[in-house]
């Protein structure tokens, strides 16, 4: 299947972080200055990227809230994540040597996108073994937690010309947090926090907490 060659695309959707491979394919081996068409997008390595707000949230969830109310936690999460995005994450995202200003319209669009993303996310969770007919609400809330934890990354994808390749690691880190936290589910400790989806939610938070600062190093 021959690859269709386009002449100098202005903006491209790239799903790969293998820049060299893509570029050589597109430019057919010619050396070209890349900064204009492919402005470097990266996240700075600063303390700003650390999502500190997740820790008190988790602390509240585990210690203070009664019955591990995941829905309530979600209500707290969304505004805090927006603030984190506006004041911390967006300020450390560099697009073509400058930091983009926050775009409020886009903020809402990506909020809606995150909400929409909960459905494929939920499908993925079910495919990985969540119950298919029961506990659907819980599964959806878990998916919502994951998606809103990824909300800054979703916004940045919109804001930075759909460079999914740069930001996919943020999604991966949250997914990895969920995946690893599954370990406690089968254990027969009979604790009330072992109920679906509490450990996975905690895992997602920890994944995000580690992932947001760490991903700028990868």
């Amino acid at each position, binding site marked *: *299947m*021959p*690859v269709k060659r386009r002449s100098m695309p202005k903006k491209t959707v790239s*799903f*790969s*972080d*293998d820049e*060299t*491979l893509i570029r050589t*394919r597109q430019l057919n081996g010619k050396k070209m200055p890349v900064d204009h068409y492919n402005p470097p997008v990266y996240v700075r390595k600063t303390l700003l990227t650390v999502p500190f707000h997740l820790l008190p949230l988790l602390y509240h969830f585990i210690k203070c809230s009664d019955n591990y109310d995941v829905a309530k936690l979600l209500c707290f999460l969304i505004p805090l994540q927006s603030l984190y995005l506006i004041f911390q994450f967006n300020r450390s995202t560099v697009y073509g040597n400058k930091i983009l200003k926050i775009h409020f319209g886009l903020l809402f669009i990506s909020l809606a996108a995150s909400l929409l993303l909960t459905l494929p996310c939920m499908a*993925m969770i*079910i*495919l*990985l*073994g969540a119950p*298919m007919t029961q506990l659907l609400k819980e599964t959806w809330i878990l998916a919502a937690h994951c998606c809103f934890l990824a909300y800054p990354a979703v916004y940045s994808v919109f804001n930075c010309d759909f460079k*999914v*390749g740069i930001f*996919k690691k943020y999604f991966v880190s949250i997914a990895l947090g969920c*995946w690893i936290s*599954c370990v406690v589910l*089968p*254990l*027969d400790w009979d604790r009330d926090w072992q109920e679906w989806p509490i450990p996975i939610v905690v895992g997602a938070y920890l994944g995000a907490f580690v992932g947001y600062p760490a991903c700028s190093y990868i």
Partner: protein
Amino acid sequence: MEPINAADEMSVKKSILNSSIEDRRLFRSRIQRFKATHRLYIVLMGSLAVLQFIAIAFFARGFLLSRSVLEDISKPVEDVQYGKFEKCVILVVDALRFDFTIPVDPSSKSYNPNYHNNMPVLFDSKDEHSILLKFISDPPTTTLQRLKGLTTGSLPTFIDAGSNFNGEVIEEDNMIKQMYLQNKTVFFAGDDTWDKLFQPFLSPMSVPYESLNVWDLDTVDNGVVNFFEEHLINSAQSSREWDVLIGHMLGVDHVGHKYGPNHFTMKEKQLQVNAFIEDIVNAIDDDTLLVVFGDHGMDHTGNHGGDAKDELEAALWLYSKRPKTWNTLPSNFYSVDNLGVDYREVNQIDLVPSLSLLLGLPIPFNNLGWPIQEISGTVEELMQYNNLTLQQLDLYRRVSGVITNPDKNHNLDDLWVKALRSTAEGPNFQKLFLESCKDLWARFDYWSIATGITLLSISLLLLLSITKLIPSIVVGQMVSEFVPSIIVMSLISNVCFNGIFHVLHQPEFLENWVWCSLLATAVGIIVGCCIPIFDRYNLAWIAIKFAEDLSDYWSRIAALFITLHALLFTSNSFTIWEDKIVSMLLTSLGMLTLYEFVFLPKRQSTTALMTAAMGQKQGTLSGSPAFSAGSDSAPLGRFARLVGGYHSIVLIVCTRLASMITICREEQGDSCTPTFTTANNNSVWCLVLCFLLIGFIPSCIKGYYNVCSSYQAAAPIWIGQFLKFVLLINFVFWTLTALENTMPDLNWDLKILKLTISRIIVGISLIAANVGWMMGPLCVKLNIQNNDMKSQQATILGYTNVYGAQYFLLVINFFMCIMLFSKPLAQVSLFLMCNQLLSILEIFDLLKLKDNLIGPVSMGLLAYQQFFSTGHQATIPSVQWDVGFILTEKITFPFTHLGIVMNTFGPHIIVALSIALLTLWKQPPGVLKPQTLLTRIVSNCGMLLIYNTVLCLSTFVWVTHFRRHLMVWKIFCPRFIFASLCLIVTQLVITVITIASSSGRLIRQINDIFWK
């Protein structure tokens, strides 16, 4: 599409590959060399298999416990008179669970009309004439063990469970023997296990019946009823020749095995038993004791063998016409609320001293039980009974010397003195003694265990180095050194070990020359393998190579999956939930490949890319038209990524769908709803699904074949006709079975028809189809197009997948057979497996990971996932014994066992066969030399074996670690047995079929046609 014939083959050879005589000679010598190497490879893999079998044998010998049996026999106690009854009628109702016998409130949630309140006689006549007790059996709850326990009063160990299928005359002192010695005539009718155990002591009038045919519900019961009618119910008092009349009814148990307790036949059976007991009650006289009991219970699926509450709780009912025989306790001991949770319990072995005392027999020498309190009418009797039992227990303790721990002995001495003084202390002595014995008979042979673990670890290292670390080309050369050195070393070490053993009797734990030779052979194989390896390499090199091999992403993922799976056995919770975890791992693997195809991350440009590019360059040499595609761009073109993504999604979705089919473990409790139930398997929707499979399976396979246009020549015959036909009659077979099971008043005798169908299927799939496959059915077609008058252009359709397409036909042969031995829902799961398997092959072909560890690991995961979704669990009760009777009505050696093996290890067999496809699928001829192909197949087989060995080793280690764990016999030990059997089955299939008979022949044939 007409099948390719010999003329076509010749024309292919002539027209496309012109050859000269020199070439031919070269080719012939090459094939000669290939044949020799192939033979050597078989021997090498065979000896590694033998090494692993020996390791498993040693471990099993040390871990599966056995109890030393004393042959002393109790003598009647002089000057003491006891025994209230002259005669006795004993009726064993197999699997009579306790809640079957007590009244259950119809409004309660657990009430089930099929098995509750159907046997009122046992509870309603609960007056001064009778007592009903909860009868707690000791695990394992299999009939043979229970009968041994019920007559000797001792604790048969787990190892005996294996001999359920060939019981032999019991050597220990037991109740029946005592009856015989006291000149009582024992008449018996029913389960022939009794006949095997007590044959010399039973009257020749006894009538045993075949017991293990679980599909026969009535023969045994009717036999027992007739026997009792003749000798008891319809015979006058005076003409009764027996002193003890024993009946063992199997109907309830068989209904449980066949349909589960929740089935209308259960009600019929219970009503029949109830009426029968009423008849007996009316017929006996004042001097006759009637004892009715169940030897064990059954779980919610109707099976037994483990130690779940449902399986342990049986019922015991004693009845006598004489008033005031029994000394009942206050009524709060006999509360039937909540299915009798708080009802008074007695141990099963307590029946032994009780019955002996009631009948005036000496208590059997090995007894550990304590007389049931209710049997002693007065305080004097209680004193007497207690003293008699205490004497017997103490005698046994002193003679056997089972308790070696001085502290325990001291404790027991104290209790013994106390017990002599007051009757209330007696049970304490017995309890402590019983507990100590239970602990002791879990005595392991640590030398054997250590030997087993060591041998298996070494075999793992050898497998790793030979099949994975040392480059396969080098192994191909080394194989001629391996074989002679293995043979020589085995001989030498056999001579040495046997010599030392006979002269010095060391090492002591070997006991006899058989074990000595086994150990010697194992050592010989190890040394024989090590000599050529260390001739060329050293340990440091192997370690470095090992680290190097794990340097790429996919190998690491594979290693991670193996490690995770092996670590599951560190905890009972993970082991219980293994089914879900395994399917999650497989789905995760699908997600990872999907990620790979969608995002094409950087690592593609590293190792995999390099090897792929090299492979492509080699590949294009063959001049095949189909192969040039995609070589101009990156390794994965957009189309390839799309296809790969599609296959990943197929893998994920099929895995998820299959994992919905589950037979829950009892430990999973409320978190799991079983879907693999008898009702679902016999339901209409399930049969409709099975009917659809007749079309779906062939067309799905056809789809995968069409990717390389390999659906030519033999493939349509095999897949479109054979497979379809077999699936159709298989569907008929299972429909008939379902009809039999769901229609109570179906009067047709379908037995002959069903047997005919099943034998046809097995004949076709295992014999005819395999013989046909040996003829070499090619899946290629010559497409000759006349473009112009001068040149004839010929295309070979299916050229790229010559090897794979043909090899998969072999897999289909076994697949057909396994389908027959799988219940309808399992067949649906196997259909999904077909898709998963082929998708995995496509994925790893696209990713160019044919030689990576990830391929065999994902196949191994698939086998385990499918094991669970075909209605199995790693427990003994979940073995589907009833499929053993598909081919024959009675237990006949190879056929019954074939059915059970095919049913239980079906997915493992399919995977062990198709592991060669990782190499062969989409492998065009002429690219790789025959020898290289073979070495790659062996390497992939080796990796699958490594996976299974790691799991087996992990179960060895952890079952040893948890040997005193509460759950060891319930969770860890069955898992260890299962892992060992998996390894054995995989080894056998890989060595005998995959490597020895199929790959070599296939490679020779294809090279014969397409050689250059």
